[in-house]
């Protein structure tokens, strides 16, 4: 992590650089694969285990994190020259906390059922390592433009893993996708269930999320040659 921090801080963007320069595009594409927050940096695992039972929850969670991270990154980046470095963590926390409360209230107002299922995990976005990590490592040392892109990139990198895990878990755990029954109704035993198929209860339990994330890491490392460590 510390190496990545130093590296990113060196990437000070010059004034004349356009927003979508080659270097800035990497801010979005890197976290999707080579520098994924979950599978490579292994951050934000807690929420990846807890709210990936259903795709809908994972999607709402990803959107929430996207909002908090992008807004937080931009705000911190704007304030970066005025924040005294001794109290920067407190300032970051205050900003992230206010954003999270905002998200929480919006979710409660418009998607109450999902908000209820996500329960404490919306509030726990504050403690999501990815957010504090990006604020510390990137927003504090970069202009708002790149900070915006970095926020989008990292929350997309977080989001796609979350949704990928949720698709697998919801399909095998309850035979559904976004709440739609794909394999028939398990309660009355229609469709596939009538010939003896059963939902995999282990998929609903958190350990399986860890295994699914592990399998994604396995596939990713065997495909992406940059991630193969030298012995």
């Amino acid at each position: 992590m510390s190496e990545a921090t130093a590296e990113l801080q060196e990437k000070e963007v010059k004034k004349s650089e356009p927003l979508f320069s080659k270097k800035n595009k990497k801010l979005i594409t890197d976290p999707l694969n080579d520098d994924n927050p979950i599978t490579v940096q292994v951050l934000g695992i807690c929420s990846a285990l807890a709210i990936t039972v259903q795709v809908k929850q994972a999607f709402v969670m990803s959107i929430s994190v996207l909002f908090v991270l992008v807004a937080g990154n931009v705000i911190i980046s704007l304030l970066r020259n005025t924040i005294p470095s001794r109290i920067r963590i407190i300032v970051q926390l205050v900003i992230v906390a206010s954003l999270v409360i905002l998200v929480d209230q919006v979710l409660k107002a418009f998607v109450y059922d999902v908000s209820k299922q996500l329960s404490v995990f919306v509030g726990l976005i504050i403690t999501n390592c990815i957010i504090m990590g990006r604020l510390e490592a990137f927003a504090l040392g970069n202009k708002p433009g790149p900070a915006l892109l970095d926020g989008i990139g990292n929350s997309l990198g977080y989001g796609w893993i979350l949704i990928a895990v949720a698709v697998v878990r919801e399909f095998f755990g309850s035979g559904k996708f976004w709440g739609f029954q794909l394999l028939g109704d398990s309660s009355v035993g229609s469709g596939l269930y009538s010939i003896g198929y059963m939902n995999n209860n282990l998929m609903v339990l958190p350990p399986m999320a860890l295994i699914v994330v592990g399998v994604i890491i396995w596939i990713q490392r065997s495909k992406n040659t940059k991630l193969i460590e030298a012995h």
Partner: protein
Amino acid sequence: MKFLRDYLDSIKPNFEKGGKLEKLHSVFDGLETFLFVPRHGAQSGAHIRDGIDMKRAMFTVVIAMIPAMLFGIWNTGHQHFLTLGMFAGPLDGLMDKLMFGLIKVLPLIVVSYGVGLGIEFLFAQLRGHSINEGFLVSGLLIPLCLPVEVPLWMVAVATAFAVVIGKEVFGGTGMNILNPALTARAFLFFAYPTKMSGNTVWINTSAENGQALVDGYSGETFLAQSIQSSSNYVNVAGVPYESATDAWMNAFWGFIPGSIGETSVVAILIGAGVLLFTGIGSWRIMLSFFLGGYVMGLIFNAWGANEFMQVPAIYQTFMGGFFFGMVFMATDPVSAAQTNVGKWIYGFLAGFLGIMIRVFNPAYPEGIMMSILFMNVMAPLIDHYVVQANVNRRLKRVKVSNQ
């Protein structure tokens, strides 16, 4: 045998480097070394190599499991006919029971081996290494530790999970931290609990025309009955045993419902004898495992807070998979502790915790599975401290001699 050897030698060049079937080298190598002891001798120097390699060692374990497997096949039939009120005596209708058991158990074994070996061959091909032998044992252990009524597709899924996630992820046989067979069982236990526990999975109750289940039929295992009462046991036909001793003798011989291979202590002890005689199973683990379970049983007897705790310590070990786990699961040389002192600690705690989980949490009657998996995870830690203690002891000796 000679013609087979000659034939293998004649087709061997095809699979060597540059041959037309080079890609299938690992498959050929796997079959050749399975059929014949490989000629991997030392090229120079005075090295003596034992003729027994991993395939031979694994096969000895398979032989040790045969008594438990045969008994399990017979018992599957025995329990089935008991629920129909037929062939009450152990020797009545022997052929019928064996045939019925064979029809039920053989598919489980075939599916387990088929899926597991298929994945092993695939990975060996993809990674270009020779085929791992470990599955010879796991493939038989998996069906033996399952209830007879488990659907075949679940066995296939669990076997695939155990081989891929339990073993290949870590690098194949010899690298796995968990016992693959128990991984498969734990997977099924948590994924499909209704097919792995309860009162309906242990016995096949399908009746043919004109047959009916006996009155008072009960599919409960002894473990399930112990929660209610530690003295009044009934057999599957609902008939109470004449005395407590009678009930426990039945459990000792294995005439009770349970997972296919786990019921008979006698059959498992024969297997244990084979393992100990050939030196493949560790007597330290078996003995300390038994002591651990026995001591925990004594502690519960002294405590005696509920019916389950009052089950006599020695009988506690006759139930469930205690002996099966002790002889075939805990002694797995890969996932067990490696040091001698470590084996004592590992075995003792596995038995101790197994009985503890079983009694404390009736939702997990098969505490033995949990405790062995738990101790599998702890084994490297135990070994680390045993080795460190040895290092420290010897360092002290150096300091003394320096003075």
